[in-house]
């Protein structure tokens, strides 16, 4: 996709998380699977954004609709899928601090809301993590959750009238951080 389209595509699908931190790589992993398995319309940009904190907002500004994929802190078992809408994401204001459990999504969205430039509809596809710590690759529970998270993204895109088209044959997801090489890998 050309850079102009990345800026202007009305729908953004973004994976959030740090690929060096075990289960925190859920967002980037789901994005890699989506990119390997599907063709998306020109209206949709699909990207792994890492953990940019407040620097998220250039990527969110001006989108009409937004899907975020990330691990979430919630009651439940590792691997459990949790879906949230815009109101739920913004219900609790961030505190004086931004905790390490808050990658700046709320603050970025609130800043955009104040600027009148926030996405109209948001879906957060969340998965409860098992273990977050220095590690390349996720726990089994989180690996098992990838198809459900992927499906949640695809369903929403279809509902918005921009269904993704499966690639035949399906490509291999580029999980470069999991490839062997290091003593950990």
């Amino acid at each position: 996709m050309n850079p102009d389209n990345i800026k202007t595509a009305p729908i953004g699908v973004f994976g959030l998380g740090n690929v060096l931190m075990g289960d925190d790589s859920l967002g980037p992993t789901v994005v890699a699977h989506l990119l390997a398995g599907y063709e998306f319309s020109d209206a949709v940009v699909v990207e792994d954004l890492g953990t940019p904190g407040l620097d998220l907002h250039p990527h969110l500004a001006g989108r009409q609709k937004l899907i975020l994929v990330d691990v979430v802190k919630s009651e439940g078992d590792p691997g459990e899928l949790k879906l949230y809408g815009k109101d739920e994401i913004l219900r609790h204001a961030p505190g004086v601090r931004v905790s390490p459990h808050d990658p700046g999504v709320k603050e970025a969205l609130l800043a955009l809301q104040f600027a009148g430039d926030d996405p109209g509809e948001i879906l957060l596809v969340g998965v409860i993590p098992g273990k977050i710590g220095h590690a390349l690759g996720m726990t089994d529970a989180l690996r098992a959750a990838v198809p459900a998270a992927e499906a949640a993204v695809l369903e929403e895109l279809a509902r918005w009238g921009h269904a993704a088209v499966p690639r035949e044959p399906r490509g291999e997801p580029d999980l470069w951080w999991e490839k062997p090489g290091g003593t950990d890998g």
Partner: protein
Amino acid sequence: MSKRIVVDPITRIEGHLRIDVEIDGGKVTKAWSSGQMWRGIENILIGRDPREAWLFTQRFCGVCTTVHAIASVRAVENAVGVEIPLNAQLIRNLIVSAHAMHDHIVHFFHLSALDWVDVVSALDADPKATAKLAQSLSPWPRNSIQELTAVKDRLAGFVARGQLGPFANGYWGHEAMKLPPEVNLLGVHHYLQALDYQRKANQVVAILGGKTPNIQNLAVGGVANAINLDNQSTINMNTLFNIKNLLDEMTAFVKDVYLTDVCAIGAMYPEWLGYGAGVVNYLAVPDLPTDVAGTQFDLPGGTIMDGDLSTYKAITNFEDKYFADNIVEGISHSWYEGDKELHPYEGETIPQYTEFQDDGKYSWIKSPRFQDRVMQVGPLAQVLVGAVSGHEPTARWLKFATDLAGSVAGIPIKTEMLHSTLGRHLARAVRTAVICEKAQEHWKLLVDNIASGDTDTFNEPVFSGLQMGYGFHEAPRGTLSHFVVIENGKIKNYQAVVPSTWNAGPRDAKNRPGPYEASLVGNPIADPERPLEVLRTIHSFDPCIACAVHALDVEGNELGSVRTL
């Protein structure tokens, strides 16, 4: 009687930093800075191909991605002794310059302005008087009465609905807030404009780096960008002119809005030129190399000791032993085994967690020392080194800033007053103005070099036997260095000494506090329940602990970040 306040954590962006202060008689008497994140992340690199190290290092931190990528390729290039084509140096320089503009603008307007600007007070502002004030400060065209009225109305609408949106976590109404309503309104207005302009800087990074965050165009030995002025899919005239337009817009915003606002707002808090000096030994490394071997630089580096500019000693190039031979990292107060001070080539990271011990171990951050001294890094170091070394653009923009702030404050602002909380903000804005100017120059150098027929962007690195090297980058938050040991083409050891390690590190073996800790002592605390002054001084360093743990907390509402004991 003394009282203890724990602010946990203090960064507005990712990272987990805990600050403890003891206060007595309304002033901080003792402080502790504690990073709550194990630094073993480099171990992931051991055994890997050094050519791919940068892909991993730029994931160390989600905010400082670019800087860790640059430092990593420079470290490996230094180890193997490969030179970089001029085009590659210049493309990298444009990327790091744009990244720095972006980072500094976000830091001031979105991460620290709320320490000084009282958003609610802006509702009492007269837009006409605000426009008049703004026009007296700078020629920025977007400070009209109409625009300021619209912003005030928007803010009033938010407040009427009981929301403060992005400002909900500010200490509005605090007695240490002193700006007149008009300046507060101008601050809110520029907060919104800064959202647009930081995006433009980000676009420069994305155009050259392929994407951002996490640029894709680096390679050990150069960059992966192809240059062909007649090809639509490579760097061509169209790409270059897009970049030029974005740089022009950024340059105007930085001078007429960012630098102007820091001077004007700062001038209304002149007492903060007297707080927050802390450690006055400074370290900065040179950056923006202009030749293939990395011997000529457009931004100077060096050290200043004891706040005495006459002690300036230059760091001149990527091979300079004065830099590499004088660094050790101590762990006497850090949660690692032992208390040895080691050079980063020998650095160890064996965790040994205890509880928080005031006089013992209390941080995951190590304590780097330079010639056995505690050093402050960051924009203040960059600007002082620039001024004393005769770097013309730094001296010129520093004079512009101190003249403007001095005229608003009605007092002359001397160089020695920059050793302070406010001095760090002023220096950061000065540095950003310098970088804008240098980015323009490097754009021209790149265009001229391409026009001369040079389209090279990559030289193949050669690996053999034992190779050791280091790479540094003068990042937005200060001196960043990566040290790598390579054996037969595989990484044997890797250590990253990051800016926030220098500034946020704990006490050392001689019990000397780190820069954050030292800078807090003597700060006034008006209200221990709302320790705004602690935030002012800590935020002036732009803390970002190279930490990346996070999980979105949608349901929770953890507000208990300030505890008074």
